């Protein structure tokens, strides 16, 4: 029986292959770095898209056609992202692109994807302040990650705040939002310490010692970390060595997930926090089967899943559904079909695509365990709607994004001047 089904799959694949010769497939572009510094995070997402494509093909494809993944490697080189995007759309004629990780890579492809009227799904949590007609943001915006995390800590009695981040656009914007949010909540300027470090900073002695001193003022202190990538390991190691435990000064991180923890000895990190929309430890049937499928696809029982993977999963499912609803892969028809679509997320609820191109998702807080997984200690009651423009910066509070309302129909409508600011994104 098994052999038979294997044969049938093979036959289907053969037919798919032969038909692809006549370009009768739907092409899915994958724009993730497979080499260079970002390969560490992005290769996983490439594999996720490949898995989703394979599953969709097994289920009969889309619109009676097979899907075909076109993988390119932008090699962690930001300008190359724009070139590869152009190649995907103009040369390979892909119908949709899943890709990018860093904000700078997304900013680099924006002009291209808008000029060529492509369709990009961006699966990573980011700083917000953007809503492009041609991009769907399936990762968290600040109000779906940073703000709820701060609320959680505040409920736990935290009064003094260290905002530590790597020196680039995402931490700077997030910290600006958080700082004005904290002040709005009555936190004194003296009780906020902001610190930036260069990329892959490895000598954290002074900073950790400063945090220790800042935290010994008698008020409960927490660190909100937007420290990126590789710099996290030495940071947590130094915390452990200088004896700062999570009970004294918890660190809540926005860029540390299961994947990053799999490269760390987690024993000294136990109890530190992370805020995401998904944890591998979430208990739901969808999640169990997703993890099982992923580990089978990759052929490794120890491989973990993480939040950007869920965002990719939701994005792919939504796109597939929108395509079947629209009956075509034409971007101008698929885009309106996306609005209001509901797809089960992996944590047991439903994700909804809003007309500002951001998702409604639940927010979870997890504590790091010694096996590299998170114990979910808190979650929002329901789904939180992603906000493209934050409410906590005066210049952004008046801006809304709505691509469905004919009266607005742009990504940056100023409710005071009643105008779109002119640029496309």
């Amino acid at each position, binding site marked *: 029986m098994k052999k038979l089904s294997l044969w049938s799959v093979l036959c289907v694949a053969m037919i798919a292959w032969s038909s692809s010769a006549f370009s009768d497939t739907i092409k899915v572009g994958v724009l993730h770095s497979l080499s260079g510094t970002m390969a560490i995070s992005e290769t996983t997402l490439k594999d996720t898209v490949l898995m989703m494509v394979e599953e969709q093909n097994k289920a009969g494809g889309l619109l009676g056609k097979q899907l075909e993944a076109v993988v390119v490697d932008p090699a962690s080189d930001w300008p190359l992202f724009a070139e590869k995007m152009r190649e995907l759309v103009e040369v390979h004629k892909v119908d949709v692109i899943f890709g990018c990780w860093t904000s700078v890579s997304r900013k680099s492809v924006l002009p291209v994807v808008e000029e060529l009227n492509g369709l990009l799904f961006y699966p990573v949590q980011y700083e917000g302040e953007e809503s492009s007609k041609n991009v769907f943001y399936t990762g968290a915006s600040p109000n779906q990650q940073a703000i709820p995390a701060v609320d959680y800590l505040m409920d*736990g009695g935290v009064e003094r705040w260290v905002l530590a981040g790597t020196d680039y656009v995402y931490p700077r914007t997030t910290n600006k939002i958080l700082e004005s949010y904290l002040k709005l909540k009555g936190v004194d300027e003296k009780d906020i310490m902001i610190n*930036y470090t260069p990329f892959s900073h490895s000598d954290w002695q002074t*900073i950790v010692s400063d945090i220790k001193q800042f935290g010994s003022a008698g008020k409960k202190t927490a660190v909100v970390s937007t420290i990126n990538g590789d710099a996290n390991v030495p940071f947590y190691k130094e915390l452990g*060595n200088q004896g700062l*435990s999570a009970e004294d000064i918890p660190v809540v991180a926005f860029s540390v997930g299961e994947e990053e923890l799999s*490269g760390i000895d987690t024993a000294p990190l136990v109890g530190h926090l992370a805020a995401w929309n998904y944890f591998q430890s979430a208990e739901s049937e969808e999640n169990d089967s997703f993890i099982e499928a992923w580990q089978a696809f990759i052929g490794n029982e120890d491989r973990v899943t993480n939040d950007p993977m869920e965002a990719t999963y939701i994005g792919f499912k939504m796109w597939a559904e929108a395509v079947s609803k629209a009956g075509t892969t034409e971007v101008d028809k698929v885009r309106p079909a996306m609005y209001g679509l509901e797809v089960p997320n992996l944590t047991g609820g439903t994700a909804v695509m809003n007309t500002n191109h951001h998702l409604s998702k639940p927010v979870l807080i997890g504590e790091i365990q010694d096996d590299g997984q998170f114990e979910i200690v808190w979650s929002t009651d329901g789904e939180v709607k992603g906000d493209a423009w934050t409410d906590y910066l005066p210049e952004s509070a008046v801006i809304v994004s709505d691509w469905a309302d004919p009266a607005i129909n742009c990504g940056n409508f100023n409710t005071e001047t009643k105008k779109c600011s002119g640029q496309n994104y």
Partner: protein
Amino acid sequence: MSTSFADAIDEGNTVLSFPELVASLTTKKFDEKAVIIKKIQESEHPQSLIILSKLLDGKIYYKKDDKTVVIADITKKTASIINASTGEPLGQTTKKKLKKVGINNKLRRALNSSIAQLSLNNEDPKIRKSAVVEMFKNMDDEMSSILQKQLGVEKNKHVIKTLETAISINQLKSSVHDDKLQAIESLSNSLYPEVRVALNQLEKNLSTSPQTSQTLTLIETTQNSLKKIESRVGIYKQIENIFFGISLGSVLLLIAVGLAITFGVMGVINMAHGEMLMLGAYTTYIIQLLLPNHIEYSILISIPTAFIFTGLVGIGIERGVIRFLYGRPLETLLATFGISLILQQAVRTLISPQNRAVSTPEWMSGSLDINPALSLTYNRLYIIIFALLVLAGLMLLLNKSKFGLQVRAVTQNRSMAKAMGIKTDWVDAFTFGLGSGIAGIAGVALSQLTNVGPNLGQAYIIDSFMVVVFGGVGNLWGTLFGAMTLGIANKFLEPSMGAVLAKIIVLVFIILFIQKRPRGMFALKGRSADN
């Protein structure tokens, strides 16, 4: 069980037997667990301390079938389990059949304070002392009287001092003027942050209360005590800063000393130096993978292994590529840069693009507490010592051995050395191998500080060139002083300017310095300088 426990709390009927208490740990609610922890502590059962500390370590599980709470020691997929409430061994089971009793930070705090109270009579004075320090945070009259009693039986003078501090902290709240004054004065010698917090709080309270002559003296004494403490803390902060500087300097020294050989002595612009560091770090990872039960010694085994392995890779690179490019610096630069990219991608393909976890042996984690205001982390201490040992060993080798003599002869005058019968080809290969091997050793040390991943080398290559050029090409003393100067300068700039600006300022300083003294701090003199 958990429902009956909740009922028991509701009805105020809190008399539960010890096994019942332990069994109720299976509840999912953190609030209930907090109550149970308190009760387990108060029961003073012989198993209490074990259960609470195992719970803190995350070793308490319950069996999914009959909900027995057990202490489990898990290795891979199997687990040996012990009944938590009786201490009786229950044999082996599989990990899948167990479910962990989860805790959160609030519970960890509660556990720490409960464990501290149970450890006041521990045999080890260090544990007794840290138990008392744990109490500082929530001192009240009840706790104070317990500690008073403890003071009567305590023999160890360090513990006695800590006990007195704890009692004094509580005494600050006393309504008797003289008691208060005495407490303030006695606390002026203590460096614990909790003492400063308590004194600051007292000062705030006093300044808002009616200004009688008594409160005025109190305020003055408090301020004097605080001033005294602050000035001492300030001094220790400076010492700590110097330590940070030296430790950053020793990391710079370690990563640069290999380059000081390949670039400094041989003159090869070796862009693949960072990847030698990376290979050394990966050697540690592989050794730990091969010897999972000997993490404690893995570092010691890794050092010679990494030296030999990266040394061989270095010799391979020299024989295969660099020897054809001597005297063509630009091409050497490009070729070695290419090698560095190849090595990085090779690691990505063969091992994984993900970072790998390298564990830190017990003896290298934690810190040496000199006093409450100054503690030095062990891993940094060891790395300082290690860096100096490596430098000393290298100097001995170059200055006292035959091989060192040959190396110096070849770099100073190649054709003359050849005429004297030295096999210059092989000296070149071994010198390059030596430099690479030392980079490999440095990689072992780095694996204890930072990520082990394909990008490890990239983060350090610029720094190592900076140190060698600044210190003076071709001089190991220069490398030592260059590394230490940069490390300490960086750490003294960092607190006031932030890490980003400090780095920029150091770079600008080096550029200006090189303008003035193009050959670095310790320039070679005499004929050899002309090459």
